């Protein structure tokens, strides 16, 4: 049993309740602030100002919008399945908070005279717990889509369930390499294992796959196909209004914060300071570690916003193809490589063997990619055969000749109509 698990095991019941409250307040506050931050940053990226009227710098805009949303009329459509319609946003909003329970936010600190860490609980299967809670959270979206009793929400719900399930596979596979290296699935152990070097560097491919799949998992741009307003109106929440809609809104943002916090924990050393700044970790009685945690999470949130400001939405079939045909096979191959290397290092195999294996693997990869390129080139030739003669009418005609094709027919139709 690790040190953190022992510390948390000694927490009295009331301290756990206090920490639960802190986690909840932290998540809600982060949501309000990240809504404001997102609107301001996206505005800046689009050469606008964004909300700047409510409070200093528009800081309480999120709160004002939340109150406004809560005071709106609450509508349950006639065609809806009322029980499930009410249940869906509740599922979405409760599950999103639950996964925060295993995220370590500080190192060892003193809270009301008790030595503990800012982490609600530490399960030996902590990361899997987060995945399982996320998979329950999907029910909220799917049920919302189904129970609305209308076409667009249903399509949105179907899309998002397919999307979240496929990207959860890729996400789970990207985590396997971390488990292999840390030798544990508990969040605190994984952070401890990164004392020397972050897994974002050691397991860079895993990190990339995780970051892509976390965007897919949270239904965010450019993967926000479940609520593609150009195609599906609002997607799964089209029929929702007032507080129920607010719950979905809350759930989306808390989920973003959770996956960012998980990425911080698994790949960026969690609450530990940047390399070279470890002396800061003892400041404020250890509470300064929270600053590092927050800084890393905010960096991820900024990345989310940056993505939204930069990338257009993917086409649905391309998106699913990317998940199943690129991310999942790539992470499978990567896991095989990592586990082989891990076995080598655990057995103390000589450097020459390891080097030989790595070179062999790289050569094999290059060979496979060259074969793939050859098949692709053959395809490119086929396409070239399909290129037709230059079209006669690829550009609009010049204005001089316009009169020849409109006026006579108009006169003719008018005459026939008057007769």
């Amino acid at each position, binding site marked *: 049993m690790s040190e953190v698990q022992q510390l948390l095991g*000694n927490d009295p019941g009331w301290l756990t309740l206090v920490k639960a409250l802190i986690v909840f307040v932290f998540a809600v506050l982060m949501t309000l602030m990240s809504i404001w931050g997102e609107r301001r940053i996206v505005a800046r990226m689009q050469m606008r100002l964004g909300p700047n009227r409510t409070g200093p710098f528009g800081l309480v805009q999120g709160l004002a919008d939340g109150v406004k949303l809560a005071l709106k009329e609450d509508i349950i459509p006639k065609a809806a399945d009322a029980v499930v319609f009410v249940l869906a946003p509740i599922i979405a909003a409760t599950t999103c908070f639950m996964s925060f329970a295993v995220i370590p936010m500080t190192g060892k600190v003193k809270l009301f005279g008790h030595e503990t860490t800012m982490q609600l609980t530490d399960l030996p*299967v902590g990361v899997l717990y987060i995945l399982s809670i996320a998979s329950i959270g999907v*029910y909220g979206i799917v049920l919302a889509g189904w129970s609305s009793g209308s076409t667009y929400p249903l399509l949105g719900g179907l899309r998002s369930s397919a999307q979240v399930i496929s990207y959860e596979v890729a996400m789970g596979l990207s985590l396997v390499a971390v488990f292999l290296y840390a030798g544990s699935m508990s969040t605190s152990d994984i952070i401890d294992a990164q004392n020397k070097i972050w897994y974002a560097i050691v397991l860079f491919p895993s990190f990339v796959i995780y970051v892509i799949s976390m965007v897919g998992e949270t239904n965010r741009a450019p993967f926000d196909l479940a609520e593609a307003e150009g195609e599906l109106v609002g997607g799964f929440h089209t029929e929702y209004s007032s507080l129920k809609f607010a719950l979905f809104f809350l759930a989306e943002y808390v989920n973003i914060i959770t996956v960012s916090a998980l990425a911080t924990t698994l790949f960026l050393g969690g609450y530990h300071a940047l390399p070279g700044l470890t002396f800061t970790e003892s400041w404020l009685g250890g509470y300064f570690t929270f600053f590092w945690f927050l800084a890393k999470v905010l960096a991820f949130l900024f990345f989310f916003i940056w993505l939204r400001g930069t990338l257009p939405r993917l086409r649905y079939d391309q998106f699913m193809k990317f998940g199943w045909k690129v991310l999942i096979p790539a992470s499978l191959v990567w896991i095989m490589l990592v586990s082989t290397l891990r076995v080598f290092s655990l057995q103390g195999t000589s450097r020459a063997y390891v080097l030989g294996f790595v070179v062999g693997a790289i050569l094999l990869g290059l060979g496979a990619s060259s074969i793939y390129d050859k098949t692709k080139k053959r395809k490119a030739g086929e396409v070239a055969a399909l290129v037709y003669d230059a079209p006669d009418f690829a550009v609009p005609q010049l204005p001089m000749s316009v009169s020849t094709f409109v006026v006579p027919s108009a006169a003719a139709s008018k005459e026939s109509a008057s007769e």
Partner: protein
Amino acid sequence: MNLILAANPFTPGQTGTPEAVLFWILAPLAVLAAVSMIFVKKAVHSALLLAWVMITLAIFYIAEDAPFLGIVQIVVYTGAVMMLFLFILMLVGVDSSDSLVETIKGQRVMAMIGALGFAVLLIGAIGRSYTGFAGLTAANTDGNVEGLAQLLFTRYVWAFEVVSALLITAALGAMVLGHRERSSERPTQRELSILRFRPGSKLPGAPLPNPGVYALHNAVDVPALLPDGTPDPSSVSRVLKARGDVLDTKAFEMHTIEEGEDESK
């Protein structure tokens, strides 16, 4: 030692107070959900109740010091299997309830035999655990996950492989059944856009014009007017046309000055 209940130590073989409270709250709920799963009319409600039963089972597993089993129960059964079920059921629609006509011959007999076999299997497995009972502390000496992994990959590796082969076969079978060969290569986006600009092409080179007469009547049931004043049929949805819901554009057409004067007389 269980982390959740760590503050309340209890001796093995005896149920601790928190565990008992948990059990007496959740067990009736689980039974109620299981029973009502059979009796509710809508398939989606049944699926939801089943998902709830699975989640309560997972909570029991975790409370019984099997955190890995509990979490995997949620990830695999609630998260993946039930979600796929729900996925299919959702396509049926909100209002439809289950058809009670039995389509498979001898369904009941087969179900009975299956249930009987399963019961024998369960009784055998549970009965055996009474004789060779190692206890949780012995099972979890190296950690819960490690203990399970050791059993799965040493003693039960053959059963594990057989089950996975069975699952892969089933998945392949489903793929073969669902596979559809394309008779011709699918045109790429590039080829389609080249086709659009070929002479005599029936595909439009630009997006279709929007319906509605700007400034006079902007609804979807009125075709747009071309520069020469004639209505453009491609601007109205085919569905509306088939339903006969398309309005006449006459009332919204702008007239040139002379023509307007002529018609007013």
